């Protein structure tokens, strides 16, 4: 079985990001990193030590940072624009729209410390709106890897993809879930565990919690399907329809507002293509109270136990026992 029975080693996905970035930059002189004074929080210290001239630090000026990224791409370079996701997406939203997405600039936007990674710092530093803000923009794939393996694979994919990309990374440690050598395919969910009672869909820091919830359900004789859906746009329509028709209920969880994120993207497909009972777990449209990311995820009903309970309620609804 896939059940996680012993505490797995946790990885900070930023390490996987910079490791791949530096490996690619060694072979590709067009790769540059752009940041807003965020050398430390983006873990770009190693990159800076190796290629100081290729680290373009614009200072604390996110609108300029994104515009400069678009300009560097126009000049033939391959920029990875890195900053805390709350500022990169919120402060620069119009630049992301006009300079990057609408202009179809070959710029990789890397939102660091997304979700509630800056938990105790409060809602100004939470980035639980970024899926919603980014996924309405045409031309812009929106990707939230679930572990260090998927992060590395997604960064490699982004570098060779001709066009804008938004990568949403966390700093909160997560266990590896995908097999070594995993190849990232945009818009394709990964089946982590199969079952027919319900489908649990998540990405980023929530996927491993879904796996733990599935193990709890399995102990009660309930087999849940678990999908890791890193790509929020384009959403994997085929996998969502299959989940609805094969399991008859879908539960989503995300480190994001319940408005406009992964769950919403899935609901758009479910409602139109395959209506089944569904529930969206996330931050329920409020500014979060003080607490660490892990505390807040538990607080908002996304502990493995609470997810399992929500799944049982949804299964009861589908079978008419609620």
């Amino acid at each position, binding site marked *: 079985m896939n059940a996680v029975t012993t505490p797995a080693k946790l990885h900070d996905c930023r390490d996987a990001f910079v490791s791949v970035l530096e490996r690619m930059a060694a072979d590709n002189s067009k790769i*540059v990193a752009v940041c807003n004074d965020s050398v430390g929080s983006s873990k770009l210290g190693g990159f800076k030590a190796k290629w100081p*001239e*290729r680290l*373009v630090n*614009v*200072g604390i*000026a996110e*609108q*300029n940072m*994104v*515009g*400069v*990224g*678009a*300009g*560097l*791409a*126009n*000049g*033939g*370079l391959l*920029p990875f624009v890195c900053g805390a996701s709350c500022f990169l997406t919120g402060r620069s939203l*119009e*630049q992301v729209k*006009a*300079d990057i997405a*609408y*202009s*179809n*600039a070959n710029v990789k936007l890397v939102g660091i410390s997304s979700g509630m990674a800056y938990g105790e710092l409060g809602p100004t530093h939470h980035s639980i709106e970024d899926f919603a803000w980014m996924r309405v923009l045409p031309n812009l794939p929106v990707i939230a890897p679930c572990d260090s393996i998927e992060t590395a694979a997604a960064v490699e994919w982004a570098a060779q993809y001709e066009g804008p990309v938004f990568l949403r990374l966390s700093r909160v440690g997560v266990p590896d879930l995908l097999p070594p050598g995993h190849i990232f395919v945009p818009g394709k969910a990964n089946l982590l565990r199969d079952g027919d009672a319900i489908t649990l869909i998540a990405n980023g820091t929530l996927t491993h919690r879904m796996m733990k919830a599935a193990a709890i359900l399995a102990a009660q004789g309930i087999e849940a399907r678990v999908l890791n859906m890193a790509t929020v746009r384009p959403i994997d329509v085929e996998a969502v329809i299959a989940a609805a028709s094969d399991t008859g209920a879908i539960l989503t969880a995300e480190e994001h507002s319940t408005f406009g994120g992964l769950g919403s993207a899935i609901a758009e497909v479910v409602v139109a293509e395959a209506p089944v009972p569904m529930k969206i777990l996330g931050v329920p449209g409020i500014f979060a109270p003080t607490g660490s990311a892990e505390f807040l995820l538990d607080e908002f009903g996304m502990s493995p136990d609470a997810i399992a309970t929500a799944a049982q309620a949804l299964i009861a609804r589908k079978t008419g026992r609620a």
Partner: protein
Amino acid sequence: MQPNDLERIARQIRLRDLQAVYDAGAGHIGGEMSAIDILTALYFQVLRIWPEQPKHPDRDRFILSKGHVALALYVTLAKRGFLPEDEISTFLKPHSRLNGHPNCNKVPGVETNTGPLGHGLPVAVGIAKAAKLTGAGYHTYVLTGDGEMQEGSNWEAISSAAQFGLDNLTLIIDHNRFQQGAALKDTNDLAPFASKLQAFGWDVTEIDGNAMSEIIPALQHRTTRPHCIVAHTNKGHGISFMQDTVDWHHKVPNAEQYKIALAELSEVL
């Protein structure tokens, strides 16, 4: 090309711009007329460009940050051979690639999509910085409106251009003294621009932005710092009743006004 030739081309561009605004029933004619001499000087004298190869890596870059005067750019690009001249008649029509703000993925010669103000200069800083990193020899020019300089993103970019030592970047401020609803001085008066740019470490030249003899040398000026040209222009330049009035930001001439404007622009062709 002699200044007289460039002035003649600028008048032809003004005339075509006027006709297109009248036909479309929309446009930003005041700011188009103020900027057309600068656009003409760039595209017919200064820029190193190849219309048949609009993405040539060595091309000089020009960004129209005041994207609402897109029509003036379209007419100039068409006259320079980037797109068919008869396509101007599609301006603002359904499915035309010539909408109210330029699209780099549809219109050859456009470098980045502008429209919201305060976007062109940061992108230009990135383009100029890329040349510094790759050793490319192109020069980057960007044209903003004076009201547009109220956008804070411009000042982020101005500061970083100086920090990066971008001597391959020229900012032209179309200082026609009017924004959409009022005079700059009655809204949020940033003038004088020169001292502010100098304080940020830029080299500044002030010119009559509707005089070809002053525009060309200013655009060709090279220094060790980023260069700003404060181009003192007249909104509606070339059409007597439009000049220096806030009304003509995006007003469309009626039939009688159109006739007068046509006559004024035609008599000097």
